């Protein structure tokens, strides 16, 4: 079992915390001049996304998490799984609902995503920062906009709903920022 001691702590280190894989967000070395040294860390649980604070005595060790990020191409989804392929080895992998979460609405066939693997199993799926998707439903948008340039909702081919400007029409493809869920431009 690989372990890390507190002096190896740094942002991005993947460790096991309370049985779950986690990543260190921030590590602060704290020590009274003549007293005990501590590592005070902010650490994010990679399963539930929650960030908590933990304190370790200097010299304590923590189990390493076998977590790695790999780039994989999204293929298709069935009822339960989202299927991805390594574009170099053609190895395929299935991610479940917990791993994909809300990001399912951004997944388009052929797009390359970052899959976080824990012990070889997908733990999280991150879509590209920007995706290009087709509008399948939106109002013509010529009437009724009283919000002063707020645009209108548009449903995209993957099921995501984003606000788009009034001039964007059904059947057009647009670029969307997946981190903010905001329209960027026509594609």
């Amino acid at each position, binding site marked *: 079992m690989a372990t890390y001691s507190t*002096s190896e702590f740094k942002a991005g280190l993947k460790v096991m915390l309370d049985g779950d894989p986690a990543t260190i967000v921030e590590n*602060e*070395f*704290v*020590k*009274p*001049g*003549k*007293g*005990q*040294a*501590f590592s*005070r860390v902010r650490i994010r649980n990679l399963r539930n996304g929650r960030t*908590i*604070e*933990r*304190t*370790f*005595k*200097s010299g*304590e060790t923590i189990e390493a998490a076998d977590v790695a990020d790999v780039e994989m191409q999204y293929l298709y989804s069935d009822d339960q799984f989202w299927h991805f392929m390594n574009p170099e080895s053609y190895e395929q992998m299935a991610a479940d609902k917990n791993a994909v979460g809300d990001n399912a609405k951004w997944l388009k066939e052929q797009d390359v995503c970052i899959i976080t693997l824990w012990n070889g199993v997908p733990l999280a799926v991150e879509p590209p920062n920007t995706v290009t998707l087709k509008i399948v439903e939106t109002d013509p948008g010529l009437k009724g906009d009283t919000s002063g340039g707020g645009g209108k909702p548009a449903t995209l081919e993957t099921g995501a709903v984003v606000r788009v400007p009034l001039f964007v029409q059904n059947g057009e493809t647009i670029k969307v920022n997946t981190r903010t869920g905001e329209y960027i431009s026509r594609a």
Partner: protein
Amino acid sequence: MNNKTSGDWRPTAALEVLRLRARLLESIRAFFSERGVLEVETPILSAAAVTDPMLASLATRYTGPLFPRGQTFFLHTSPEFPMKRLLAAGSGSIYQIGRVFRDGEAGRLHNPEFTMLEWYRVGFDHHRLMDEVAELVMQLLAPTQSLEAPERISYREVFRRHAGLDPHTATSADFAAAARERRISVPKDLTSQNDLATWRDLLLTHAVEPKLGQGRLTFIYDFPAAQASLARILPGEPPLAARFELYLNGIELANGFHELADADEQRARFERQLHARAAGGQAVVPVDERLLAALSEGLPDCAGVALGFDRLVMLAAGARSIAEVMAFPVDRA
């Protein structure tokens, strides 16, 4: 060399901050010169080392004339021992500005080598020395900060105020409850141990320190006797150490003592610390016999203090990390 490190030759401190550093050093020298305190220099390399289990010394090796087979020398963690030998030799009040070294310490407020201002005042006790520390620090920070009058609070009182307990009588269960109430995460092996010193340091660093020195200098004094280090123990129940620390903006800036002058008591403390080091798997280091010999000869009644100069520059410059006030911290050394 790869591209990632190609900017590493540059200083991490702005040149303006380095100029401020130089001005502060000048002001410190003027302050002591006016008061007739003598500037001294003592060796960085020492055949003996500090025994305190909370301090780890770096070491190097000299080989050549005088030591043809080689001799290990420890880089001092503070100039305290040789300065006390000067005091015992009749130097009178003295100060020193120099680099000190600590293994295992790096972070936002720590660098393994840093600049310490250390001074000793013959005939002072720790309260009189606190007056002088306040005067110096207020004077140095005056151009950049407007601070209210300094405050002085006992170690017991700061714990009562900010951790809700009496640090001298609390049990580990009391500390655990106080930590839980304040949502402080407790290191896992601490819950199972009756390690009161570590409990105090946990609450001190997580609950107390952040509240200290808000807009004014805060001195805390009269520490638990178990954390006396090189301070005298004051008679009374519980016994307290004649020790103080100074905080500003939640940052520990200085640590001072009414100095222990009893050679036998000092030897006993060194031995207890060596036992603790051995038990904790730390290096058992040679005791400074020359310091003990000087104490046997007679240390004048005095108080001494060590002040982290880099942290003082941080406060004067409004810097968030020690790297912002050092030309080259250890990762660019």
